[in-house]
C-alpha cells in the first residue's frame, strides 16, 4: 500500500484525513487498554484479597469488560429533575476529553509521536489541569449534597497536588534542558542508571504519589469516598454517562503512568545499553506503574481529608522545592553530568 497514492487522490483533504487516522490509531488501543485495565484491576485486587475476581464471562473472564460496556450502553441515563441539564450532560465529556487530548504529544518511540511540539511538557500539564472541570461540574450540576461535597473535595485536592506535580516536572525540565518529551527521553539514554528516577528520586516519588492524588484514586479517593458520601461526584449518574467518568479515570491512570515512565523511567529506552529500544519497554514500564496503582488501592486505607491537605502542602511542596535547589546547585558544579 502506497501512502503517496492516497495523498495525491485526496489532495488538500489528505492532511486532516491522515491525522485523523493517526488519532484513531492512538485512541482505539487506548480504550481497549482502559477496558482491560478494569479487568486487570478486578483480577489483581481479587488475588490480593484471596478471592477470584471476575471469571465467568469468556475464558478466565476475559470478556467481562465487553459485557460491562454493553450493559452500561443499554442502560438509561437518568437526569435528576433538579439538575442543571446541559452541564449535567457536559460534565462527563469534560472529564473524558482532556484524558484523551493529552496523548497527542506523548512519544511512543523516537519516531512515533502524533505532535512533536517543543512545549510538550507544558501542554500536557495545561490539558490535564482541565480534567478537574468534569468532576466539579458533575457535582454541582447534579444538585445533590453528596455529589457537591465530592466535587468540592476533588477541586481542593487537585489544585493542591497540581503544584507539587508541577514542581516535580520543573526538576525534569532542568535536567533535560528541554520541554519536548522526545528530547526528555533522549536525554535519559545510556541505561537504567541514567534515567531520571535516580538523580531526581524525591521528585519521582512526589510525582508518583501526587499522580495518584490527581487521579482521585485510593488512598486519595475522598472525592468518591464510598463509605462517606456514597460515590461522590458521580452518585447521580447512570448508564453511559457514568461509564464516561469511569473511562476517564482509567484513561487518566494510563496517562499518568505513561508520563511517569516517559519522564523518570526513560520512556521507550531499554534499561541495559546493549538491548534494542522500543515501544515494548514503554509498555512494560507503564504496566509496572499501573500495577503499583492497583497495589496501592488494595493495600492502603483512605487518607483523612486534613491529612491529604497536610501531605500536599506541608510535605510535598517543601520536598520538591528543596530538591529543585539541590538540582540547580549541582548543575553548576563539576558533578553536573550526574543530573543530565
Amino acid at each position, binding site marked *: 500500500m502506497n501512502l503517496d497514492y492516497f495523498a495525491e487522490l485526496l489532495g488538500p483533504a489528505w492532511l486532516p484525513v491522515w491525522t485523523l487516522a493517526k488519532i484513531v490509531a492512538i485512541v482505539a488501543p487506548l480504550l481497549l487498554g482502559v477496558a482491560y485495565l478494569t479487568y486487570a484491576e478486578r483480577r489483581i485486587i481479587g488475588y490480593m484479597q484471596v478471592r477470584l475476581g471476575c471469571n465467568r464471562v469468556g475464558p478466565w473472564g476475559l470478556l467481562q469488560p465487553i459485557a460491562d460496556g454493553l450493559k452500561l450502553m443499554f442502560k438509561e441515563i437518568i437526569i435528576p429533575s433538579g439538575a442543571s441539564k446541559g452541564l449535567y450532560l457536559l460534565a462527563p465529556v469534560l472529564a473524558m476529553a482532556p484524558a484523551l487530548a493529552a496523548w497527542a504529544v506523548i512519544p511512543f518511540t523516537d519516531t512515533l509521536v502524533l505532535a512533536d511540539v*517543543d512545549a510538550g511538557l*507544558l501542554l500536557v500539564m*495545561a*490539558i490535564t489541569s*482541565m480534567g478537574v*472541570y468534569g468532576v*466539579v461540574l458533575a457535582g*454541582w450540576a447534579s444538585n445533590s449534597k453528596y455529589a457537591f461535597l465530592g466535587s*468540592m473535595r476533588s477541586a481542593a485536592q487537585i489544585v493542591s497536588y*497540581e503544584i507539587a506535580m508541577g514542581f516535580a516536572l520543573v526538576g525534569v525540565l532542568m535536567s533535560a534542558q528541554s520541554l519536548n518529551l522526545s528530547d526528555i527521553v533522549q536525554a535519559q539514554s545510556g541505561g537504567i542508571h541514567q534515567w531520571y528516577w535516580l538523580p531526581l528520586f524525591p521528585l519521582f516519588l512526589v510525582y508518583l504519589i501526587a499522580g495518584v492524588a490527581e487521579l482521585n484514586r485510593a488512598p486519595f479517593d475522598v472525592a468518591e469516598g464510598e463509605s462517606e458520601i456514597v460515590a461522590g461526584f458521580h452518585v447521580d449518574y447512570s448508564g453511559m454517562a457514568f461509564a464516561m467518568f469511569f473511562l476517564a479515570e482509567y484513561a487518566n491512570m494510563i496517562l499518568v503512568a505513561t508520563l511517569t515512565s516517559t519522564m523518570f523511567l526513560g520512556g521507550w529506552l531499554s534499561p541495559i545499553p546493549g538491548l534494542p529500544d522500543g515501544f515494548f519497554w514503554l509498555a512494560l514500564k507503564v504496566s509496572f506503574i499501573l500495577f503499583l496503582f492497583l497495589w496501592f488501592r488494595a493495600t492502603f486505607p483512605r487518607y483523612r481529608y486534613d491529612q491529604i491537605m497536610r501531605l500536599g502542602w506541608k510535605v510535598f511542596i517543601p520536598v520538591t522545592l528543596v530538591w529543585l535547589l539541590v538540582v540547580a546547585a549541582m548543575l553548576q558544579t563539576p558533578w553536573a553530568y550526574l543530573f543530565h
Partner: protein
Amino acid sequence: MEFTSLVFYIFSAILLLASLRVITAKNPVHAALSLVLAFFTAGCLWMLLEAEFLAITLVLVYIGAVMVLFLFVVMMLDINIEEMRRGFWENLPLAALVAILMMVEMATVLGGSRFGLTPPAPKPADYSNTRELGLQLYTDYVYPFELAAVILLVAMVAAIALTLRRRPGRKWVDPAEQIKVKRNDRLRLVSMAPQKPAAPKAAEEEEA
C-alpha cells in the same frame, strides 16, 4: 481568504460570544464557565499568533487553577444575581465612560503604524518561543522579574496574615505524635486461662 484568517474569525466569534455570556448569564456558575471558554479561546488565538508559551500558560494558570478556585467559591456562595443587577442604570454612566476610555486606548495601541510598528515576520517551525522567553526573563530582565515575584509573595503573605484567625479551643493532634504511637500505648494483652461458657447457658434458661 486564507485558512488562518478563517480560523481566527471562528475563534474570535466564539471569544466574543463567550465574553458576552459572562456578563449576561443569569446563573453565576454559567457566567464563570463562559469565562473559562473565553480564556481557552483567547489561548487558541495566541497560539495562532505563534505565542505558544503564553497560550499554554493562560490555560494552565487561569483555567487550571484560578477559575477552578473561582468556581469553587461561586458554587458555595448563594449569590442573588437579580439583586446585583438592580444598580445597573445608576452605574451605567460611569461604566460607559470607562468603556469609552478603554476603547480609545486600545484603538491608539492597535493603530501600530503610529508607532512605526510593522508585523513581525513569521518564525521558522523549530523556533522555540518558550526558550526565548526564558532567556529574556532570566538574563536581561532578571531583576524586574525577581522583584515582581517578591511583590507577589508579599501580597500572598499579607492575604494569609489578614485572614488568619487564632482559635484557642480547637482540637488538634501533632502528626509526629500520632505516628510515634506504639502498640503498647493503646493495647494490653492479658493472658487468661481457658474458661467454660457456663454462665450464658444459665441466662438462656432463665429467659425461657
